[in-house]
């Protein structure tokens, strides 16, 4: 495939960049400072986790709400989620100051910390994702021995419990990524700081997860040259409209309730970024998905989904970086950007490889 060669080059550049970070330290290779200790690596953690919401939303739709017609989307979506979490682990390894101590949260506990809860949820949910993908591996290996048969049967028996646990863990940590910021009211712009930020993070990740499912379905269909089941995607997009409507209402109601609505009309950078997030992530996709012509067109649904993803990414970058009123600017270094690009490219390559060689679609 044509795109895979440039992707591999980006991965190699990313690995070199990560190597430089470990040789020369965070200070020399990143734009991080004492005023911006969290940069785009953390921002992309937020984005990858949010997009990985594809996994638990589709699993819930099929296995809990029993809308069996979406069965064919479950495995691709869980694979997206799994790759998302693996990418996050890599981001953490380059971002943590002391990655060799990354195991500490297992034995050193501070339940007061939102970060503690997130760490445990991510760890447990990654295990859930492995359990959800294990049948794929067993099918591929096709061992035909008693043990693997027993294991398959056991996984099938436990499936509802696995899915429910996955949804609980996802709900907890998707919202907790927002809760991380509850403790920083004095440092953040009121456009993004809110005492209901966990709720906003949760609702927005649902829309992003479904949009991610749609985008990956279309991309995979194009790559493998089969026709996409558009009826399913159309139905998913109709759920997105509802979620976006709820999200937009809560978002603006929250601004009104906190008495900061008028600040969105001032002419400066933060309100501009706010509008970019709202227009790209809510207004455009809602118009596309409500309009009777575009919502029945594959290109309309496709574009709307990309807009949802774009708005979602903007929201996470805004919350993690733009919202901070520090009186300084953070512009990521080339090395930080190279690591991000390399990891995203690696994610695409992994997805493409696994979906070609395993029974995903």
């Amino acid at each position, binding site marked *: 495939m044509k795109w895979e060669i440039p992707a591999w080059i980006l991965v190699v550049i990313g690995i070199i960049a990560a190597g430089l970070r*470990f040789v020369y330290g965070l200070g*020399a290779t990143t734009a991080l400072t004492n005023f911006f*200790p969290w940069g785009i690596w953390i921002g992309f953690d937020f984005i990858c986790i949010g997009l990985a919401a594809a996994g638990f939303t589709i699993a819930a739709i099929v296995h809990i709400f029993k809308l069996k017609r979406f069965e064919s989307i479950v495995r691709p979506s869980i694979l997206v989620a799994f790759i998302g979490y693996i990418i996050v682990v890599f981001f953490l390894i380059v971002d943590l100051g002391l990655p060799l101590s990354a195991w*500490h949260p297992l034995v050193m506990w501070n339940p007061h910390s939102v*970060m503690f809860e997130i760490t445990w949820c991510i760890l447990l949910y990654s295990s859930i994702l492995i359990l959800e993908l294990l049948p794929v591996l067993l099918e591929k290996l096709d061992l035909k021995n008693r043990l693997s048969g027993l294991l398959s049967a056991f996984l099938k028996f436990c499936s509802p419990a696995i899915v429910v646990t996955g949804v*609980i863990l996802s709900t907890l940590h998707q919202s907790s990524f927002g809760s991380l910021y509850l*403790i920083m009211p004095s440092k953040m712009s009121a456009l993004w700081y809110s*005492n209901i930020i966990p709720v906003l993070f949760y609702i927005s990740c649902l829309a992003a997860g479904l949009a991610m499912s749609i985008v990956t379905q279309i991309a995979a269909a194009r790559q493998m040259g089969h026709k996409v089941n558009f009826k399913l995607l159309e139905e998913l997009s109709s759920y997105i409209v509802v979620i976006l409507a709820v999200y937009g209402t809560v978002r603006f109601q929250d601004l009104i309730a906190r008495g900061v609505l008028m600040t969105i009309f001032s002419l400066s950078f933060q309100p501009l970024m706010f509008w970019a997030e709202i227009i790209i992530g809510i207004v455009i996709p809602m118009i596309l998905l409500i309009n009777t012509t575009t919502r029945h067109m594959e290109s309309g649904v496709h574009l709307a989904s990309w807009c949802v993803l774009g708005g979602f990414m903007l929201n996470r970058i805004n919350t993690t970086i733009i919202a901070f009123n520090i009186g300084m600017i953070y512009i990521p270094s080339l090395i930080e950007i190279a690591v991000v690009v390399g990891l995203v490219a690696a994610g695409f390559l992994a997805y493409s490889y696994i979906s070609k060689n395993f029974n995903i679609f």
Partner: protein
Amino acid sequence: MEKALLIDITKCVGCGECSAACAAAHGFGAPTSELDGTNYTAVTQVGDLYARHLCMNCKEPTCVSVCLVGAMTKHENGPVVYDFSKCIGCRYCIQACPFFIPKYEWDKTFPAVMKCNLCYEREGTACTDACQFGATVYGDRDTLIAEAQRRVAENPGMYVDHIYGLKEVGGTSVLYISSKPFSELGFPTNVPDEAMPKLSWVVVSQIPKFAVATGVLLFGIHWITARRQEVLKAEALEREAK
């Protein structure tokens, strides 16, 4: 007994002996005019005044609350102390501190978080011992608050009526009085009076309940939808039988 520092900005002459003594006590090089990985306290000139910055050693510290491995500890007698052996380098403490205090050793391969710990291993602090002008005094927090209130009350023209650190984020173990408003001296004045950890604890403390409720709800839905399918199957069989 909770110990504290009282810093009277009107008495500071900007000699920098406190910074130098601090650097010597902690093995740093010559102090700079900014807090960083090798400087726990910095004296900055604002007009004709000198404001000394250092960790506020909050009563209910944000850093202690956010640290997922508990590398930050609040000691009973005041100091907030960092433990490198626990730290994983996530830098949440630096990100969350409302006073912009913890600094990172950005240039090191195995960096630590650096901040004042009120010289917790000894009685008194190096900076207090070095101050010849009484601009910084060390003592019981309650005694120092009474002293600060007395100075402000007796010299109303000289001091602004604000003891910085008395109420900020629920109180701190470093207290300031000044002749200029603190907002003009580079101190964050938009911090709430309530202790910050509550802001996230109200949510985090609900997690066990929330997890159980979500679990019950999801299993309930699963039970209903599964049952519905069983009924549909049974009805189809019945129809076939007829």
